[in-house]
């Protein structure tokens, strides 16, 4: 179970010290200091929390904190060392769920349980952004949330091909409602009935990142119980981090004797990112033309299905006139990392700078990505003249919906 140090002992010892993670860790590549690469992080965790041969100093905390949890190292590691889970477990051991100041902890615990910033806090944040006192790159909140617009079941237009439950993440719910609307319209147009289950909470990934296992478990248990009740062919997300959480991390958060564990395991293979799902079952209606060019940033949290990477490109290839211009390194991290961009803003900006250069080098002005965090931070970096969007919104426009 994530959060259980003993469970990870064998996996920590599996690190062969091969150094291959130096090729992928965005933090290391920016800092150019080996202490900040997965190999060293794992070793330092081993020495301090397992062998206890070294004390936990502020520097140890920094090494464990200064990680985006991007999972690049885990995805690439030949030794199958789940580095990001080890780091989360170390955070849990070090902080017991109180890694940040009380306000931040309140945010991940309470506000996220309600799926995003709503009501009075949303109003305050909107005001702060108007006055330019909110952190740069922090997404703009919408005062009309997705769950105030949609709930219940939505039959498709045309012949029904499938029925899915749509798990709307916090970002879509309160900040990027446009993406949620596009998902609804495009799925419905393609003969897919969509259910929006009631009372879902945040997927739990922000709490997990803080090492706040209790909160993450609370959210996960709530969501598994609700989703297991749905009689659907698939569970759809638009956010790759929610998807990763539901598909590959949820079951790892439940203890072996938890009655919900079997349900979580059964749910896992049903979880799909929306373009991946559409690409798998095929479009029922051919989209119309769009005379545009776009580039594609592949989110780091992509390792949970093998087809997620390519899905938007394959799907959008069916739009006549739409042209794709590839970056040199479409899979390179953008540096946002959930709330990382606020905690380590210089480092995050440095990582983003490389990404922005790559994006602007493509000579287009539309950027798609399935991660709302990446979109929001990249959009702040790109400035005016650029449109950033979830790929499904291009499809919506091509359908004229």
């Amino acid at each position, binding site marked *: 179970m994530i959060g259980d140090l003993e469970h990870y002992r064998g996996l920590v010892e599996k690190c062969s*010290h091969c150094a*291959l993670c*130096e090729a992928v860790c965005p933090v290391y590549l920016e800092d*150019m200091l080996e*202490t900040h690469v997965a*190999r060293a992080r794992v070793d330092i965790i081993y020495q301090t929390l397992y062998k206890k041969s070294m004390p936990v*100093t502020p520097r140890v905390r920094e090494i464990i904190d200064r990680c985006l949890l991007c999972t690049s190292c885990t995805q690439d590691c*030949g*030794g199958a060392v789940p580095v990001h889970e080890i780091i989360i477990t170390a955070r849990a051991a070090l902080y017991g769920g109180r890694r940040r100041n009380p306000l931040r902890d309140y945010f991940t615990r309470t506000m996220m349980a309600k799926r995003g910033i709503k009501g009075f806090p949303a109003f305050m944040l909107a005001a702060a952004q108007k006055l330019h006192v909110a952190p740069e790159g922090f997404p703009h909140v919408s005062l009309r949330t997705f769950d105030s617009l949609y709930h219940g079941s939505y039959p498709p237009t045309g012949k029904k091909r499938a029925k899915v439950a749509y798990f709307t993440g916090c970002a879509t719910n309160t900040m990027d409602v446009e993406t949620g609307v596009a998902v609804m319209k495009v799925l419905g147009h393609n003969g897919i009935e969509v259910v929006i289950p009631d009372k879902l909470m945040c997927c739990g990934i922000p709490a997990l990142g803080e090492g706040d296992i209790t909160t993450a478990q609370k959210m996960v248990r709530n969501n598994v119980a609700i989703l297991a009740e749905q009689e659907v062919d698939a569970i759809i997300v638009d956010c790759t981090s929610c998807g990763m959480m539901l598909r590959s991390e949820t079951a790892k958060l439940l203890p072996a004797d938890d009655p919900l564990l079997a349900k979580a395991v059964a749910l896992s293979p049903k979880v799909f990112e929306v373009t991946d799902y559409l690409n798998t079952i095929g479009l029922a209606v051919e989209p119309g033309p769009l005379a545009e060019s776009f580039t594609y940033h592949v989110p780091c949290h992509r390792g949970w299905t093998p087809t997620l990477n390519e899905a938007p490109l394959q799907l959008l290839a069916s739009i006549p006139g739409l042209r794709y211009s590839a970056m040199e390194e479409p899979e390179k991290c953008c540096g946002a990392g959930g709330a990382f961009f606020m905690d380590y803003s210089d480092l995050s900006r440095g990582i983003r700078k490389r990404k922005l250069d790559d994006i602007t080098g493509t000579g287009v002005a539309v950027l798609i990505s399935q991660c709302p965090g990446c979109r929001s931070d990249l959009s702040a970096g790109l400035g005016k003249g650029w449109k950033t969007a979830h790929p499904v919104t291009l499809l919506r426009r091509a359908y004229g919906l």
Partner: protein
Amino acid sequence: MEIKGSRIESLRKDLSRLLGGGKVRTEPEDLLAYSSDATRYYAQGKPEAVVLAESVDDVCKLLRYANQYAVPVTPRGAGSGLSGGSTPIKGGIVLDMKRMNKILEISKGNMTARAESGVVLANFHRAVEKERLFYPPDPQSMDVCTLGGNVACRAGGPRGVKYGTTPNYVLGLEAVLPDGSVMNTGGISVKQANGYNITQILTGSEGTLAVITKVNLRLLTLPPDRKTLIIVCDSAQLAAEMVSRIIYEGVMPSVLEYLEVGAIWLMNTYSPIPVAQDGQVYLLIELDGTAAVIAEDIGMIKSLSEKMGAREVKIIEDKKQADGIWKARKNLSPLILRIFQKSISEDVTVPRDRIPEMVRAVREIGALLGVPTGMSGHAGDGNIHPGVQLYEITPEMEQKAEEAIRLMIEKGIELGGTISGEHGIGLHKSAYIEKELGKAQIELMKRIKYAFDPKGIMNPGKIWTEA
């Protein structure tokens, strides 16, 4: 002169003043991170300071200081070495070269390049290939290892069979001597006859003579096409014989890897490999050149395989699938640790026609001592990386492993081979080098070392054991 008081604290103060604080680390966690290379079991001590050099000037200043106070300096690239070479066993300063990572020139006209030594090999590959040029050396750690580390260890890789290894491409070096003076050896001419070949003495010097700061490398033109294929063999003997025959018949694959079924099975868990999983040994081959030449080579390999009785020749047509297979090949060493607790990859290299004998000997050694052995490597050049794997680490198993390694190395020497084809000597092989080279050569090496580094500060304790 000697440093008085706590050496770590003095180094921190002195070096920060000399180089600027951002380039010096002395906290215990940073020292731990720089205490070993990819052979964590050879970590025997920690450095007392880590210096992150950003310029030749930094290196000069640091060496002048270290030489004055007789502080050991261990140059370090990616720390991906497999011989314990960049472990600072005598403490002192680890000099991280990875921030010196600029490619300075790629000359299409002269077909050469000049780069700082901290450039990561894969980045160098990408840059030259953009110009339709080709730098063949391909140690499987290419995504992280540095040009400086490659030169310092004489790194090779699968393509060695056709194209040779790093030393075949080094034309000149910029290096800083322990007294802080900078020298430029060789040049960028593809032929040189200008006195002692200092370039090639530094090539393979494993950080014991000087710090390499820039490298001049020879380039080829990029082959227009390449194709991957796999031959499934039902016996090790057959596979080993095929290696020699393929080359003898005039096909020179750019890669010719010998992989035991266990290796294929592990690689298959990382990236799908579309061949039967119940063969004994697999030859993973890459052919390069024009499409016509490749087609001809494939024809030859197919008819040879049929004649000699190989089970199947599978051509991998899908480029993505081929890339996946090569990526799995790169990850073979960490993949082995999914099953075993510890794996020691040997680097003994034998003449190509002695491979069948080596294969037999390694199996016998494993059976004799009761330790699992495996062999997967660059068979085309005789470098088949026999290895020992342990399910659990106990003193008894460790001892057996050591004994097995010793026997393999001795067998390699007996068959007319060398104790290291590409990883270098470092700590791992220092006990065996005299056996291969003889006393007189080791004594000469020591005198060469003294000429470069009279105070003995450069990576002390490596290559040969001290009396």
